[in-house]
């Protein structure tokens, strides 16, 4: 009996927590739902996650460059702790996706990524919670037997401000970044980490 009561209370509690989370993100009200394009060339996006221990919301933005006009694609309280959804994306236009996850202990994990879907392609956005936070991959699964990491996938800088938890994105560079082929980074490092070792003549003369 107690178990049933707990089960009954669990999802409304999660929903309430998520609403609180969302209200932090958008102080006035919950962002509207994402509306798939009704005409023109489209790509398919499927969203999945492992079972998450806290509420999560998966957004897109009306303005993918500046990350304004958030819209909910799916969330965890729609499908009991997992992100699960499927929608269409306008092909050829950049789309910015935001995974917002509140892990146990009120540790929040936010990932903002932009990519440019191609017409008639099938993409999978997969969210994974880890001990240190969360991750979000985008794969082209048009050929399911041969999934490929999406080549135009660009990480965006998540910059919460004091006034809002909504991401602030540096818009200027996104088209340049999307135009470049995806490059792996086997070292996992940034050049800044080697600056003390670089010879002074490696910097161009001012």
């Amino acid at each position, binding site marked *: 009996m107690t178990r049933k009561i707990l089960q009954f209370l669990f999802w409304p509690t999660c929903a309430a927590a998520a609403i609180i989370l969302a209200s932090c993100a958008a102080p006035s009200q919950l962002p509207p739902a994402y509306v798939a394009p009704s005409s023109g060339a489209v790509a398919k996006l499927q969203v999945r996650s492992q079972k998450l221990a806290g509420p999560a919301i998966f957004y897109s933005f009306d303005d993918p460059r500046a990350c304004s006009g958030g819209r909910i694609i799916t969330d965890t309280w729609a499908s009991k702790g997992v992100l699960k959804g499927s929608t269409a994306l306008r092909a050829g236009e950049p789309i910015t996706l935001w995974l917002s996850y509140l892990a146990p202990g009120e540790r929040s994990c936010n990932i903002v990524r932009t990519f440019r879907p191609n017409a008639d392609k099938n993409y999978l956005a997969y969210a994974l919670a880890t001990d240190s936070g969360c991750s979000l991959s985008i794969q082209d699964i048009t050929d399911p037997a041969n999934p490929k990491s999406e080549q135009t996938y660009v990480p965006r800088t998540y910059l919460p401000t004091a006034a809002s938890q909504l991401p602030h994105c540096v818009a200027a560079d996104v088209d340049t970044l999307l135009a470049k082929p995806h490059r792996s980074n086997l070292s996992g490092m940034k050049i800044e980490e080697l600056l003390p*070792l670089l010879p002074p003549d490696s910097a161009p003369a001012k």
Partner: protein
Amino acid sequence: MSLHKLCLLCGLIICVSGTASGMEPDKLFKMVSPSVWLVRTFDHDGLPLNSGSAVVVRAHQLITNCHVLGEASSFALVKDHVSFKGRLEQVDLERDLCLIAVADEHFKAPPVNLADSDQLAVGQHVIALGNPRALEMTLSDGLISRLQRSDDEQLEAIQTSAPFSPGSSGGGLFDMDGKLIGITQRIDVLAGSQNLNFALPINWLKELPERSKAQLDEYYAARKARESTAK
């Protein structure tokens, strides 16, 4: 066939098979070990930070993994209690390859011979030489287990059963003729994995100067743009 001719033929067969399989590991070790060095990094207070390995590829120049040098303020090349101050010359973070140099004229370590890593085959015997856990000059052996290629069939990594450990990074993976085929870079440490070790193909060394310049130019251009925006 006379016994004399039969012995000559057997000798010839043994000689040929010996050449095909390359050198014995002990001879190989003697040949290449003067060219493999311990990299010791230091923080801005001069305290020891990390250690790894590096291989001499040209006079006064060594190749290592950039991640060995991460967050260091200085580093030294060490062997047999002798230490030389190193400097960073070229950087390819995307491929985790950094070229370092020793200016000291007393640094006489011989460069290794380089193999053509596009000619490798799965099943080939290899040896790895480096400084795992700062245990200087540790030799291990194994096979090329797999050649990892990109979609356009370019060699991206040499998977080997020759064991690596932390500190092996930047060390040499050699064929049995003592030629450098790769730079030992990473291990798969996921639960259940056994002896899945990866080296970077040595042919990437040829592209390092150009790629280093491109990455540094891009970094400085982006920094300049950020500084202009901030003003």
